[in-house]
């Protein structure tokens, strides 16, 4: 599904990713862990097409399509979804209007009809329930005045609605208390399917107690330095990142 080879990217003159390889197959959940500043968020942003990064080498393909040839909206229509670490507040932009525009853009690219008002509302209600969200949320401006937990749940709610092929969750656990974390994780788990892959970017093992990954990768200094099963996450939790990062350096 996703094939990343030798990916190099910089911000300004500073190289952040220095040759990253990753293969994700349909239905798999990969966790990317690593210390602060290792390039985890950069990786998520580069894949989704955020400005401010320069890809200086390597490739990333989603179902054979070169992601770097595509605009951010084209990547989204192809089935890529980024759950933001810091969801952006959009004052004055109604959440329902936003969701409808997004869903219709993606449906249209799949050759599907736009949803009528009734079917759209039915779909919204169904998805809101998964995230334990109140439908008053639809009437508010996007993320504006939302609590931290509401913002993160709104991200996963969008993911439920847009049904991506590949979802990248960028530090979705940061700033969540344990109850909110459980709701978000349950939401994510409900969306797992044999066709849908996920990349869970996190600093802590905690999230992985709820979202069990198939593979765990350690990212340090812009490269994946160790890959393993979910037991690798537990080992990292116990020993910290120091041993593995220093081991690599030596």
């Amino acid at each position, binding site marked *: 599904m996703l094939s990343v080879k030798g990916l190099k990217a910089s911000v300004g003159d500073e190289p952040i990713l220095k040759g990253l390889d990753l293969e994700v197959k349909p239905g798999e959940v990969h966790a990317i862990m690593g210390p602060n500043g290792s390039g985890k968020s950069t990786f998520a942003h580069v894949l*989704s*097409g*955020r*400005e*401010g990064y320069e890809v200086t080498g390597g490739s990333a393909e989603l179902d054979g399509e070169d992601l770097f040839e595509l*605009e*951010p*909206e084209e*990547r*989204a*229509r192809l089935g890529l*979804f*980024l759950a*933001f670490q810091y*969801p*952006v507040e*959009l*004052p*004055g*932009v109604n959440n329902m*209007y*936003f969701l409808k*525009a*997004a869903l219709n*853009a*993606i449906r249209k*690219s799949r050759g599907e009809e736009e949803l009528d008002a009734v079917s759209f509302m039915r779909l919204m209600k169904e998805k809101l329930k998964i995230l334990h969200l109140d439908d008053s949320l639809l009437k508010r*401006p*996007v993320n504006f005045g939302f609590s931290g937990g509401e913002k993160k749940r709104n991200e996963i709610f*969008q993911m439920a609605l*847009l049904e991506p092929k590949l979802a990248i969750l960028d530090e979705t656990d940061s700033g969540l208390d344990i109850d909110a974390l459980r709701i978000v994780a349950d939401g994510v788990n409900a969306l797992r399917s044999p066709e849908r892959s996920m990349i869970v970017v996190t600093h802590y093992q905690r999230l992985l107690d709820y979202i069990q990954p198939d593979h765990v990768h350690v990212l340090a200094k812009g490269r994946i330095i160790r890959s393993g099963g979910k037991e690798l996450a537990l080992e990292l939790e116990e020993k910290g990142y120091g041993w593995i990062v220093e081991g690599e350096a030596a």
Partner: protein
Amino acid sequence: MNAAVHQRTGQADAAEAFAGWLQGLGGNGDQNSAGGIDWLESEREQAAARVRTQLVPTNKSEGWRYTGLRKLIEQGFVNVDEPVTALTPDDIGEFLIPELDAHRVVLVNGRFSDALSSLGELPKGVRIGSLRDLLESDPASVKGVLTRIAGEGRHVFASLNTAAIDDGLVLQLDRGAIAERPIEVIHLSIGMDEPRVAQPRNLLSLGDGAQAQVIERYVSLGDALYCTNSVLEIALGRDAVLKHTRIQQESRNAFHITGLYLSQEANCRYAGTNIGLGGTWARTDLVTRFAGEHAECDLKGLYLAGDQQLIDYHMDVRHALPNCASRETFKGILYGKGRAVFDGLVYVARDAQKTDAEMSNRNLILSPNAEVDTKPQLEIYADDVKCSHGTTVGQIEPEMLFYLRSRGIAASLARRMLCLGFAGEIIDALGPESLRDYVAEQVGQRLEQAPLE
């Protein structure tokens, strides 16, 4: 020395520059509706005399620094001389706001059109008609109001309009009268063989406790080149309430000038929203005078200027009496090579204690070639007042744009959504839902068509 010569040539004689605007006026009283009404003849003559002594404002003149007149004068506009009668109601179908239920008045090139207007049944105490007709049938009913509120006006364009008083809309509400349905006023312009200036003179007069909602729109057939030089005089009695929406959608080649002069008695409330979308050159002056205490004046605005467009709003709010409130909330969106001017003056006299005045102007600039010149001014001579002002000029946050695009939304639609979000505060304040939807759609379409930079 060069500079001095330049300035002198720049300070052209207004009578010469606007000769075409005065053409056919004065002297032969039978040419226009003022014929035989002494007080009005005299007002017109005085206005024409003022034009003869005035100079054309230059970029050194107060209030015209960023709004050059050269382009306008070069067109050589000539006063509209005959009414357009060939139109049928079908011709104005494209201008109507879907599902807006309103008493409709249509003026064509400044002349009231009975054939195109559909007033429906007017509530008791509400009268709508043409100034021309009224000057014939009952000139006394506008005496003491017409020309009295605007006075000499703010500049030469007010004098030009007064010198040319002939027709326009008159809306009169008796004491206590209430018009529940909105009154829609469509100023339609049609291009003629030579560039014409239409100078409608409009009068809105609400008696004590009267209430109305007026939706005024300036539209045109096609891309015609013409000029509208409109003056509105508005008299609000005690406790009266007027909700006034003005949508300027002139053709992209048109020149538009409005002088709106407002007189407010005690406890009355004026809520005006100005939407500026059209024209290549547009100047609006909003002038308020409080004639009684506890009156409120709320001026909102939204302007959108792109390539080949200059949109200028000047406000002059004068608090001479205590306990009145004024708000000016203007937002602008500039793209391409669009230019806008916001100049808001709030003057609080020494005796105007407990004045509550607030002024804000926020701008969103979508292109490095767009420009806005904003000048909020508070002049306060009283010591117990609540006054504030704020101005911002910013750009769309790249983060916001990326967030929307990362959800599959095209960049042009994403920008439209963010701009409408920015403008939402103004659009949401418009009365009926059909009007809000219409304005949002007009603004949205323009933004989606604007080049991405």
